[in-house]
């Protein structure tokens, strides 16, 4: 399955042996019909870091997240999250594991029939472990954390794209996850709003101290927030490096991505 022509610099990870390896993906393959999206993907994400997975839109980055959450089963390969093998877990164990992982969806995925407050406490209210008063306190606290105090009684349709993303983050934080997955958090937002969301992710790292994994095609955003960046290309991670190492990478795929991003940003009137 491996293409020997591809410049791969990231070594294939082993199943988690260190407590620091929170997510380990090994040899992941996934096809949709004739479309072979993931082709032996390997990745290791460490505890407490912000890891950005970058690559072109539609290259399978979101599919990777769905495997990490156990929303999809791999055709081949292994996915370990917090020491448990996700792809073989039973449904009930998977639901328990998901309590420890949060995901912020590309389109926010708020339930349109619920208010902002009800969306934020959705996971808590379904568990029935907290009183209404306690849940209201959690909702107010998490909404304040994302800068949305006062929006509790609004409906999702009354919010802007950026506000929806913030509510989705608050909903995830309400579950106190150990890992948060951000799926294209700045897609569809104007540059100012993108900056706000990036700042929010950076703030969360300082305040909440959880592991953040961000998939994005916005390289500028990745450079702002990430401790390490993984380059996604043709269904595999072809480079893993810190932002400064990434810029200096000799990998032709990385160089091409950087060159095209700078070209696009300068054509679009943005700083490259």
């Amino acid at each position, binding site marked *: 399955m491996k293409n020997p022509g591809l410049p791969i610099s990231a070594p294939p990870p082993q199943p988690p042996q260190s407590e620091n390896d929170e997510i380990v993906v090994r040899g992941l393959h996934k096809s949709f019909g004739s479309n072979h999206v993931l082709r032996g993907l390997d990745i290791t994400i460490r505890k407490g870091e912000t890891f950005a997975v970058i690559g072109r839109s539609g290259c399978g980055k979101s599919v990777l997240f*769905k495997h990490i*959450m156990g*929303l999809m089963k791999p055709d081949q390969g292994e996915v370990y999250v917090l020491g448990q093998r996700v792809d073989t877990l039973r449904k009930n164990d998977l*639901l*328990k594991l*998901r*309590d420890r*992982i*949060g*995901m912020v*969806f*590309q*389109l926010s*995925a*708020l*339930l*349109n029939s619920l208010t902002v407050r009800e969306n934020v406490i*959705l*996971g808590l209210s*379904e*568990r*029935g472990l907290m009183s209404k008063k306690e849940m209201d306190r959690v909702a107010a606290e998490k909404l304040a954390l994302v800068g949305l105090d006062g929006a509790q009684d609004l409906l999702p349709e009354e919010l802007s794209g950026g506000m929806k993303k913030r509510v*989705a983050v608050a*909903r995830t934080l309400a*579950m106190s996850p150990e890992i948060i997955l951000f799926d294209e958090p700045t897609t569809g937002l104007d540059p100012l709003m993108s900056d706000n969301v990036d700042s929010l992710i950076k703030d969360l790292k300082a305040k909440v101290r959880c592991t953040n994994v961000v998939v994005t095609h916005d390289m500028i955003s990745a450079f702002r927030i990430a401790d390490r960046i993984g380059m996604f290309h043709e269904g595999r991670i072809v480079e893993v490096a810190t932002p400064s190492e990434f810029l200096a990478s000799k990998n032709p795929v990385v160089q091409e991505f950087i060159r095209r991003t700078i070209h696009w940003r300068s054509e679009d009137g943005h700083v490259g």
Partner: protein
Amino acid sequence: MKSLTEPLGRALIQMADETGRMIALFSETILLCRHVLHQFHRTAIQLVRVGPESLPIAGMMALFTGIVLAMHSGYALREYGSEAMLSTIVALSMVKEMGPVLTGMLVAGRMGAAFAAEIGTMRVNEEIDALETLGINPVRYLCVPRLTACIVMVPALVVFAEIIGILGGLIVASAYFDIPADSYFDSVFRSVDVEDVAEGLVKALVFGMLIATISCYRGLQTRGGARGVGEAITRCVVQCFVWIFVSNYFVTRFFVTG
């Protein structure tokens, strides 16, 4: 020959696969119905939507069905001087057949389509994925309230439609055939027994379970944006109608042959 049998075989396999998945969804939903009290608010909303909100249209449908049924049978019976039999024909037709089948089709078109559209839209907007990431079982959250509502409210709607249909027959009986109300009702009560009512209610129960299961299944299986939602609704309504007719035959056969 192979070009003919291959697609046919594939379609049959797909149909068997889908039927199996629907049975699995139904079984899971029934098992999760033990949590229905925890879902009281959401279940109450669905109960009101399926039941009270369907009353006006169910009443209109049943009233005019009863009127037309009485007119056809009344004029046919007049030729044999047996107009008095009109009430028996209207009552038995409404209780055993027209009430359950027409109400089932009405609920399938009205609520089955709505369920498939709602759940399908949630699927394409990743809201169902979001539920799963929050550790919420979508079957428990979405299907249990809808199945409960259909199991409770479709039989109730059928009883309502049967009563209104019989009253529609009374209008025609007294206006066109000079049959007094007391003899009309007397004939109705003499001709309809417990087993007839039970047949109608069993059909209603089966239709309610089918509508909820098919609509939830079609919603959960939705793929591909707005077009996918449209396809889910169409397939949901068509499948509900087909299964209502098929199951109607089996329940009727069970009661007729004992």
